């Protein structure tokens, strides 16, 4: 029964992904991407990765959607489309947003080459998963390296009930400092590039 839930969730993920790229309205596309992240958060919860699920829900579904909307306010709402005759036109000028006469170009070199690259990458990734240990295998390398040490010594050494926080804040403290500085740098970069300066 619970496997059925997993299959349904993964199916929803695929549906959301396909819907997001096939929509003409970029605003709806952004919202669908947000729901993709929400389903992904449920999948993480099913895998018992609650911290990751929390991050996915707040960052992927929450803030990314908002930042995309902010970026969308700088561009136009509708995707650049082609009329049936073949010439390019801009649907943002159209008053009727239903876009009955608008169509995407069926085939183009960029689309076909993109499809080939995606299929190739997917095939390589699937080939790569064949060498991976079984799901939850206690002898897999990720469980035998430092994970056992964290689980055994994390509680007495760091004395923090949430083991993920213990690893992030103490054992991997430098990593977390680096991540914080990356976010800080992103903020500084946005201020330097996009802020309107007063003319002096």
């Amino acid at each position: 029964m619970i496997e059925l839930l997993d299959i349904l969730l993964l199916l929803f993920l695929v549906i959301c992904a396909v819907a997001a790229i096939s929509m003409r309205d970029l605003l709806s596309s952004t919202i669908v991407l947000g729901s993709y992240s929400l389903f992904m958060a449920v999948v993480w919860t099913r895998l018992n990765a609650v911290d990751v699920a929390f991050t996915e829900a707040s960052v992927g579904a929450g803030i990314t959607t908002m930042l995309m909307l902010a970026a969308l306010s700088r561009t136009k709402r509708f995707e650049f489309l082609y009329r049936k005759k073949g010439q390019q036109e801009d649907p943002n000028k159209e008053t009727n947003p239903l876009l009955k006469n608008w169509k995407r170009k069926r085939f183009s070199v960029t689309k076909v080459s993109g499809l080939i690259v995606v299929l190739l990458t997917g095939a390589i990734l699937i080939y790569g998963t064949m060498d991976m240990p079984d799901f939850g295998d206690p002898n897999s390398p990720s469980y035998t390296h430092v994970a056992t040490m964290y689980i055994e010594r994390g509680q007495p050494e760091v004395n923090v009930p949430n083991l993920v926080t213990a690893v992030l804040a103490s054992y991997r403290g430098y990593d977390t400092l680096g991540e914080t500085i990356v976010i800080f740098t992103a903020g500084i970069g946005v201020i330097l590039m996009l802020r309107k300066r007063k003319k002096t």
Partner: protein
Amino acid sequence: MSEHIVIKRVSNFIIPFIQLFSLYVIAHGDISPGGGFQGGVIFGASIILYVIAFGMKDGRTRISEILTDFMNSIGVLLFAGIGLACVIMGGAYLEYTKLAGSAGEGHGSHAEHALHLAGHLGIYGIEIGIGIVVASVMITIFFETANTQDDD
């Protein structure tokens, strides 16, 4: 968007709860899922919701450019400063238990308690630092990316 009365009322009602939840997430990072990063993101999102409902100008009067710029740096300095404080107290960088100082020396329950408290407070401190950085950077990115033509 500023004339939508329903959006305004609902966000007025819900924003305090979102902010309270974000502070809860930051403060309980060590005993439950979440932490500084997630809490900071949620706090930033609450401010962005306010800006979406009430407009850029009103948003900037609530949370000014200077404030977010300062908070950007203060968060990183808090994180790095706690690490440096550990060095000054004679430990390694980010070795929180050294923050206990002389109270953590020797044996017995008193010293042990002091060490635990120092470790806890150190982790609290860096979580708060991360939260401040993330919240202010998210607010900054939203303010700088969103189109300001409506308000100018």
